[in-house]
């Protein structure tokens, strides 16, 4: 009895334990099941937003050297190919290029792939034809370079493919190597473990793995790298669950998009799509057998078989895979031999340009986060078409650092930093941006975040206010000492840079020579609030206190904000929001948002014409005279230098016929940098713009402008009709004495008011 009792107790204990165990396990499995569904049905792959440069437009007459075209093509991921066989291939023959563009979905529609021949001569595009024909093409555009991505997970990029985009040879090779029984098993395959063991022993090397693709996927998707019994069992359960819930093709596709295939600097290369771009600069569909073999071989140990780091091991591994391909009838003997003989060299060129422009990408990101939630931005595969012009960006990066290094050769100039913003003169598109002299170092973006006093860069706002109040370029201005008492401040006695007074000077020369005293006197006469209103119409944002010191540029602005203000001058008095994004498309390439052109005329064209003419005098005879060392005086460029107290900030803002550029140079610790606008920012501006072969600046003259000489020594200047000096006042010079008396009266009253 006792025995039976004991037995019963034992049985019931065992049964209870079993039930309990089953219950616990069931709960655990349910938890895993929920997890799987959450992952797979929710965000299986968090798709990074992809950022593109502007597409390169090619047309006869465009200034372009063969080297620059080649650089553009390389950046856009084109590959040299003597056959020019498929989309994304090019062949350079001296100054002639044959290339096959890739399909690209623009907001305006699909631009299909095209075979074209581009011939260049003398630094310009001479002719574009359809390859093999003499049909001339007036204009083509090259699909834009992918310059970066925003990803929720750190440093990951992906090119997501669907099942139909996976080449059959790749799928068959993958299954032959990693999981021969894929279509037969239920997630885990006992037999394949043994088969793999035998195959490996037979081959004397590791040719087959034991984990099914599903297990590998489960592991990669869901589990950390800890290696315990629990993890292995979880992995197996998950594999079974995955197979229960999802079809083979879904699992295979997920695997192909998830598989880790190497490192690109700090970024993990996941998925065959991205790996194909990364190693071979081509789409997965275009890969040859040897390239497929290399990628599939790398799954085993991506860093050990990295073609760039360990080419010999990579080749050996590829040979193993190719042999298996032959055994499985995927390659015939001659194909096998050909593939075996292919060198690895194509895989050894690093793909250029990925996340290479961190400052610009940072700007794009800043713009987008104003409109999108972070998770939508990072996870939904948005396609972001930007305005970045790589040619301009390259020159900015090259010359900023180089010129700063040259400047630092002089004593007292150390630790110089800089920022540059270049935009299209007429449409306000931001073409290039440097946030510091080391372009690849992501970090503090000075172009968008360093707020510094802008010094004399504010002066055009003063003089434009004067022109709007009826002053002419010849109106006399008093460059005389002034002392101002602002409440709660010391008495302020501003000085000229040369610490001299220049007496009465014509308005345009006061601007050209950047006289502080003349500007203060003029600004006080006009009213500081009026000047601030002008600055706001130009694009100044935020509130500024109406202190007279505003007239000398105590307002702190970032280079980007300065650029927005000068954009209004450069484009003839039309304000337009500067843009770095042209459109945003969804993962399915539908247009989500376009950032189109919009303009707003804020100043009469005549006043802007007069002011811009004065800004040309800054370059031809004023503080920016040194610019002629870089760009011929005949280009008639317009610009303004800026320097702040103790030479802490050096600015130059100016425009050519085609572009506006703003340069800031200074130190991060805000210590004196030992340079003026003319000796620091100007040379950087000059070097960059020279390299870009600028167009001469031709200001369109509005109707109703009269040209006249203000006096015997002055240049011929434009006047709004009716304001030009009477012919008899030209000789002798205008009666300054009377004007002086009148204006002195106003000055005195203002001074009294200020004191």
């Amino acid at each position, binding site marked *: 009895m006792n025995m039976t009792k004991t037995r019963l107790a034992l049985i019931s204990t065992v049964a209870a334990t079993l039930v309990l165990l089953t219950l616990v396990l*069931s709960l655990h*499995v*349910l938890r895993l*099941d929920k997890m799987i569904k959450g992952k797979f049905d929710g*965000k*299986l792959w968090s*798709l990074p937003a992809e950022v593109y440069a502007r597409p390169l*437009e090619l*047309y006869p007459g*465009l200034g372009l050297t063969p080297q620059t075209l080649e650089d553009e093509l390389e950046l856009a991921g084109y590959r040299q190919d003597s056959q020019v066989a498929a989309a994304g291939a090019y062949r350079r023959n001296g100054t002639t290029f044959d290339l096959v563009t890739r399909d690209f979905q623009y*907001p305006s529609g699909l631009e299909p792939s095209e075979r074209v021949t581009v011939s260049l001569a003398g630094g310009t595009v001479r002719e574009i034809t359809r390859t093999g024909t003499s049909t001339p093409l*007036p*204009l083509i555009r090259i699909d834009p370079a992918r310059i970066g991505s925003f990803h929720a997970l750190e440093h990951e990029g992906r090119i997501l493919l669907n099942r139909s985009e996976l080449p059959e040879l790749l799928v068959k090779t993958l299954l032959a190597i990693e999981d021969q029984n894929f279509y037969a098993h239920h997630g*885990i395959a006992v037999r394949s473990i043994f088969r793999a063991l035998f195959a*490996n022993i037979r081959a004397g090397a*590791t040719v087959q*793995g*034991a984990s099914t693709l599903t297990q*590998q996927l489960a*592991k990669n998707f869901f589990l950390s*790298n800890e290696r315990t*019994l629990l993890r*292995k*069992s979880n992995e*197996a*359960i998950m594999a*079974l669950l995955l197979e*229960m*819930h*999802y*079809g083979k093709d879904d699992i295979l596709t*997920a695997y192909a998009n998830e598989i*880790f295939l190497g*490192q690109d600097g700090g970024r993990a290369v996941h998925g065959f799509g991205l790996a194909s771009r990364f190693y071979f600069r081509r789409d997965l569909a275009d890969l040859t057998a040897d390239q497929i073999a290399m990628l599939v071989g790398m*799954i*085993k*140990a*991506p*860093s050990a078989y990295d073609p760039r780091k360990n080419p010999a091991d990579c080749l050996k591994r590829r040979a193993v895979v190719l042999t298996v391909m032959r055994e499985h009838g995927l390659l015939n003997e001659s194909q096998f031999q050909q593939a075996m003989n292919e060198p690895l060299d194509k895989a050894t060129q690093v793909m250029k340009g990925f996340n290479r422009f961190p400052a610009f990408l940072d700007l794009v990101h800043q713009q987008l986060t104003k409109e*999108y939630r972070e998770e*939508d931005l990072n996870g*939904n595969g948005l396609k972001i078409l930007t305005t970045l012009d790589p040619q301009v960006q390259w020159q900015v990066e090259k010359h900023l650092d180089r010129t700063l290094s040259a400047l630092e050769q002089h004593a007292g100039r150390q630790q110089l930093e800089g920022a540059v913003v270049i935009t299209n003169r*007429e*449409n306000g*598109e931001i073409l290039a941006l440097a946030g510091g002299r080391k372009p690849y170092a992501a970090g503090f973006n000075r172009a968008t975040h360093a707020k510094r006093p802008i010094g004399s860069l504010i002066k055009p706002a003063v003089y434009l206010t004067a022109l709007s109040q009826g002053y002419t370029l010849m109106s006399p201005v008093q460059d005389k000492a002034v002392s101002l008492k602002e409440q709660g401040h010391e008495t302020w006695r501003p000085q000229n840079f040369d610490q001299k007074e220049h007496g009465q000077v014509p308005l345009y020369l006061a601007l050209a020579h950047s006289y502080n005293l003349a500007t203060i006197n003029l600004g006080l006469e006009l009213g500081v609030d009026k000047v601030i209103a002008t600055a706001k119409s130009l694009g100044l944002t935020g509130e500024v206190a109406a202190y007279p010191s505003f007239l000398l540029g105590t307002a702190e602005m970032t280079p980007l904000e300065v650029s927005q203000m000068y954009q209004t001058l450069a484009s*003839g008095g*039309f304000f337009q929001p500067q843009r770095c994004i042209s459109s945003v498309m*969804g*993962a*399915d390439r539908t247009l*989500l948002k*376009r950032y*189109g*052109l919009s*303009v707003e*005329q804020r100043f009469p*064209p005549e006043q802007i014409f007069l002011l811009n003419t004065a800004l040309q005098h800054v370059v031809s005879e004023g503080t920016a005279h040194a610019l002629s060392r870089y760009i011929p005086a005949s280009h008639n460029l317009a610009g303004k230098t800026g320097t702040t107290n103790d030479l802490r900030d050096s600015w130059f803002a100016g425009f050519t016929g*085609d572009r506006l550029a703003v340069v800031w140079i200074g130190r991060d610790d805000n210590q004196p940098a030992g340079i003026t606008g003319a000796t620091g920012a100007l040379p950087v501006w000059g070097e960059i713009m020279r390299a870009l072969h600028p167009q001469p600046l031709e200001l*369109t*003259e509005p109707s109703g402008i009269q040209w006249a000489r203000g006096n015997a020594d002055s240049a011929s200047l434009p006047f709004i009709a009716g304001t030009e000096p009477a012919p008899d006042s030209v000789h002798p010079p205008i009666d300054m004495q009377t004007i002086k008396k009148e204006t002195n009266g106003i000055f005195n009253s203002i001074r009294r008011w200020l004191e």
Partner: protein
Amino acid sequence: MEFSTRSAAGWNDRSHPRSAMAQRNGLISFRRRPPLPLLLLVVLVLPSCAIQHPVQRPGTPVPIERPDVPVPIERPQVPVPQPPAVQSGPARSLYASANEALASGHPGQAEMLLERALRIEPRNAQYWHLLAQSKYAQGDFGQTVQFCHKSESLAGNNNKLRQSNRSLLQQAYRKLGDTEQAEKSSR
């Protein structure tokens, strides 16, 4: 033995590319492989939840904004005098396409073509004028006015174009209810 090392190395490499250390002890995990029958049993015990979930492609839950929304096309009541045809310039083919798009009732398309043309020839007053027309057709009279001004500021002595600008400007101001400006622009 070979394969266990292989798999572990492969896995490690996949998830932690830089961790070479972890590549070594591959054997352990395979020696401890859990009993499969038990796992299968567990899975069978599972409630029958084998519902097929379609793989969901990442969606884009962001509001869609299209430039070419089907708004009724606005046409100037008084035909705007045709500016002279563009014969030269690298973007002339785009200008021609924009003209066609506008004529066939696709002002949004025309707008995109013209923006592209202006990227190539930013100071072509005629392109700016056609852009004004494409804005008019979309009912954006404020921008019509602005683009007319922009065209005007670059027109130089192209009198025919100036006339077109004035005519369009006048009609846009009328649409905006600004008769005073409309009167002014006709002069």
